[in-house]
């Protein structure tokens, strides 16, 4: 156990986290402590934006853990993110209480105008923060567990697995679109008021959420580090490269995959839960297959199989999106599409891979015992 | 016919071949030997064009082929039986053989009957997928596939690996037959010393990416060679 904990703290990781957390801390403090007139004041806009990026980074991390390290290409990871988001959203909805437009103390507005008699059973308990937080982890985790249990035992691999994860998220999207499901249909859950008694629209709460996201990301990063640096990490990498061979060594591949898949889904759920209060809405389009594909794209851009890569990729691509949609609203897809194409052609191992290659060339050395990023394993 | 002069070859940062030179004449069998990992396969890869050389020249009939793509070299008559067989797993045995047609003018696109005399098992298995064959059967298929292209230079990378003794003998006989026809140059990479000795007209021995010994087979000092093959 001690080994497991300590493994998380390697030098590169510490530096990376240190820089990341430092920047976030400065950002938060400058928003809170400096007057708005100060040139160093961080606008609230930036706080929520960065908060959102951090939750995306955590999500990307969760995908990288299974894709980069275990070779499971999930094209449906958005589903776990969205489920976590819905769990949080349901809590926030319940927090509204009678402040909704219809003033109904028990029912969220959409239920009132769709004539619900009472709260559906699956909404019970979400008024309690701890319960909702448990669900944030448990629901995605349970879905991943059940899904993975079947799929990995049946030895569904490669594109077949990718496509059924896509089918899963697509089915969930259609289901959540259905108004009868009791999750607000297409409009989803919105109009949140406060969290743990803090006003969601106040800057301090926003900074708090930013810090919470950073903490979650750091924790996720450390867990991933620890997992991937353990022997377990080597086993899942072996599964990625030669699944059958791993089995002949006596490893129960399905359990190894299931464990990492479930862990990853829980991380995605947490990311979703932190995302929702910061963007103020959760709606079924988060389940859209395209969203899940985008997550994979972030990871690929950053560099699959390196944890920093996932984080950097998620932040960079989303920043690019924010930037381009504002400055080049009519043609930004050219820029983003071009970025993706360019990244594959010129940065075959992602940004981090490219940076590392550059570093190795400059210094002419390679971390002993640490191979360069391996050739991409074939599916 | 095939002249390799002073080639260097690297895998990323590590250099695998250091100034390797070879000559393979038509109507002869040239044998390349050496321990594991000394660069035999790398040499063949350089010749067929599967891996670029960083310097040096490879000539076929006096014309440099360095700039040619693998398929062009194949069409000029270089055929390759790779280590590890590299059968097209989902193509049937027949289709595997027919891939060699790409090198042939339309009129010559058929599988020579004598191939099946050499490897009768293939005839029975024409409809089976290459990947389903046993290891030795695949090895036989790989050799047959190379012969379909009617090559002028035949590169064989450990062709006896995994093949039953009786067929090894047959293969030996075929190689002799092909040599005796006089127009084919054969480069044989082999670890199985006796087999190599029986066939070779010329030999080269490699160590750590370099040719360390070469000569006519009948002038070969067996102990000298064996020394280089021992660890």
């Amino acid at each position, binding site marked *: 156990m001690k080994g497991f904990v300590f493994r998380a703290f390697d030098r590169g990781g510490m530096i990376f986290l240190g820089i990341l957390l430092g920047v976030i801390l400065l950002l938060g403090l400058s928003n809170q402590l400096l007057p708005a007139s100060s040139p160093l004041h961080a606008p609230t806009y930036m706080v929520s934006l960065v908060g959102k990026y951090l939750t995306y980074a955590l999500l990307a991390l969760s995908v990288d853990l299974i894709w980069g390290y275990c070779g499971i290409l999930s094209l449906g990871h958005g589903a776990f993110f969205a489920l976590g988001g819905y769990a949080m959203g349901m809590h926030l909805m319940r927090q509204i209480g009678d402040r909704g437009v219809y003033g109904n103390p028990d029912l969220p507005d959409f239920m009132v105008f769709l004539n619900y008699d009472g709260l559906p059973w699956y909404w019970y308990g979400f008024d309690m923060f701890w319960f909702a937080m448990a669900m944030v982890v448990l629901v995605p985790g349970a879905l991943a567990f059940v899904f993975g249990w079947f799929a990995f035992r049946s030895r569904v691999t490669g594109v077949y697995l990718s496509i059924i994860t896509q089918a899963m998220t697509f*089915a969930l999207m*259609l289901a959540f679109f259905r108004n009868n499901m009791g999750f607000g249909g297409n409009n989803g859950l919105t109009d949140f008021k406060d969290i743990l008694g803090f006003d969601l629209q106040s800057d301090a709460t926003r900074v708090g959420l930013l810090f919470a996201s950073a903490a979650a990301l750091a924790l996720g990063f450390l867990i991933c580090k620890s997992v991937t640096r353990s022997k377990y990490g080597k086993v899942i990498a072996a599964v990625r490269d030669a699944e059958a061979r791993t089995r002949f060594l006596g490893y129960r591949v399905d359990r190894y995959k299931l464990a990492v898949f479930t862990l990853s889904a829980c991380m995605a759920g947490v990311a979703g839960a932190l995302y929702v209060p910061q963007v103020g809405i959760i709606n079924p389009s988060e389940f859209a297959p395209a969203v899940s594909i985008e997550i*994979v794209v972030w990871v690929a851009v950053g560099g699959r199989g390196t944890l920093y890569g996932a984080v950097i990729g998620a932040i960079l691509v989303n920043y690019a999106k924010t930037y381009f949609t504002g400055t080049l609203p009519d043609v930004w897809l050219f820029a983003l599409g071009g970025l993706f194409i360019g990244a594959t052609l010129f940065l075959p191992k992602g940004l981090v891979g490219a940076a590392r290659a550059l570093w190795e060339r400059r210094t002419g050395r390679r971390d002993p015992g640490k191979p360069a990023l391996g050739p991409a394993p074939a599916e | 016919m095939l002249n390799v002069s002073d080639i260097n070859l690297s895998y990323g940062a590590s250099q695998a071949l250091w100034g390797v030179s070879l000559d393979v004449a038509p109507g002869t069998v040239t044998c390349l030997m050496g321990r594991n990992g000394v660069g035999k396969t790398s040499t063949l890869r350089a010749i067929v064009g599967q891996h670029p050389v960083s310097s040096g020249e490879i000539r076929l009939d006096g014309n440099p082929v360095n700039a040619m793509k693998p398929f062009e070299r*194949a069409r000029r008559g270089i055929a390759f039986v790779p280590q590890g067989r590299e059968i097209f*797993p989902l193509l049937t045995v027949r289709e595997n053989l027919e891939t060699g047609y790409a090198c042939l003018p339309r009129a010559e696109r058929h599988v020579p009957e004598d191939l099946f005399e050499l490897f009768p098992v293939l005839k029975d298995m024409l409809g089976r997928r290459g*990947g389903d064959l046993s290891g030795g059967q695949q090895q036989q298929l790989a050799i047959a596939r190379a012969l379909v292209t009617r090559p002028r230079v035949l590169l064989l990378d450990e062709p006896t690996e995994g093949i039953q003794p009786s067929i090894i003998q047959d293969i030996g006989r075929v190689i002799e037959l092909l040599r005796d026809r006089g127009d084919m140059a054969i480069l044989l990479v082999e670890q199985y010393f006796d087999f190599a000795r029986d066939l070779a007209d010329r030999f080269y021995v490699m160590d750590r990416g370099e040719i360390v010994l070469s000569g006519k087979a009948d002038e070969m000092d067996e102990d000298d060679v064996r020394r280089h093959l021992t660890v």
Partner: protein
Amino acid sequence: MARFLALLFALCLCLPAIEARADDLTGLIEQLNTDDYAEKEAIVAKIAATGDARAAGALTAFRDGDLYSRKSDGKVFIARKAESGRDLLDPITGEFVENVGSRDARRIGVNNNLRRAIDSALGALTLLAKDPKVRRAAAASLFGSPDPEAIASLDQAIANERDEAILEAMMQARAASVLRSDLDTATKVEAVRILAEKGGRDVMSMLKRLPADAPPELRQAAVAAIGDIKDRLALWATAQNIYYGISLGSVLLMAAIGLAITFGVMGVINMAHGEMVMLGAYTTFVVQEVIRNHAPGLFDGSLALAIPLAFLVSGAVGVAIERGIIRYLYGRPLETLLATWGVSLVLQQAVRTIFGPTNQEVGNPSFMSGAVEIGAMTMTYNRIWIICFAFVVLAALMLVLRGTPLGLQMRAVTQNRRMAGAMGIRTDWVDAMTFGLGSGIAGIAGVALSQIDNVSPNLGQSYIVDSFMVVVFGGVGNLWGTLVGALTLGIANKFLEPFAGAVLAKILILVFIILFIQKRPRGLFALKGRAVES
């Protein structure tokens, strides 16, 4: 003979009367220039009552929205679109009167009620027309808008009719009108019998519409007829469902075939597949635009032209993508997802920039419009053609893959690119051709899909998920699998839809795919054995 003479006599008697009422007709038409729809309906009834066949032109124009009033004096004309503005024609004689600016004349509004009234009036007026087509249409339209007033004209027409089929249609139209009339019960029961023989939903609807206070024997006859028709319909419903399933399946197949090449054979996770389909659809649009503007007469041939062009356009773009991007990624199949995703964004935006973000109109050629009824089964022509087309494309593709050297080389290259090169296969050329072929076929699919769906920059996105599902469900790399997969999903969907609803049916299908893959982790037509693992 006697009847004929009598008729002739009757007609002669009528003639002067009609002549005398010509001004009446003009007057009535003039009165149509009002905003009150109820009033217009009354006037149409009056025009019909004149029995004057010359009113047909004006009424047809009215129904089609071509009747205009001149703003300057309120006079009513038939308008034709002219080079500039409109040509006004005399409503009765059809003679050219003058050309006016497009804002100088006002359309006389027509609504559905009026159209119904006009149809029945026209029916009555054109029952005796020379052209058998017109007579048949008149009978059909009278059947559609039965009118007791028309019984007399129908009787007259029936007496004259020689054509068996038209006669039958007229009898049916008459029966329909009889049911609405206050004729005696026996006649009505006979009418029910005639209608029951025809069968179909429209008849059922007619029979159900009988008033509650109808005489018992009539009711009885109607109930029996309805039951009879229902039984026949239930049988047809199953057939219909299977047909819908095949039709949906053929659309899925069409959308997926190209992907079965680029993804199934080559292993490229081709996220830009949908955009190749879209390019094909836009090619169709451009072809049709050009034809509309330069050779409107050739419109029906537009698809014949669009198919090869779409193949070339999408194929060329595919080759460009392969040469420019994909070829650097062999051996890194997952990276193709990233690159092709980028390509798909770029292509979508490019189309949006060039053609605009809105839907483009792609028309059905006349042979693809409408439907054929077989029994109680409706089969729309566009879908019938798509079914045929999908199968033809699939067959052609199988021929290429199994029967040509290129097909063998494609498979060899994708299974072991390095070794294929050593066998003398021009791998880069084969790669480009394979990707081009897959893309080109996607382009052809675009032509087909443009006939049933939106042509917009989003077109591709709506098919990409389904296409992957089909290919994977059928088993990657197996065209038969793609075929069976598409049809299975199509038919399953159509059998679920009636009771589960469209949304739930789709969800159930997805769940079914997930479960199915558990049973067969490599799809429906999985390859087995060592070969697959190596």
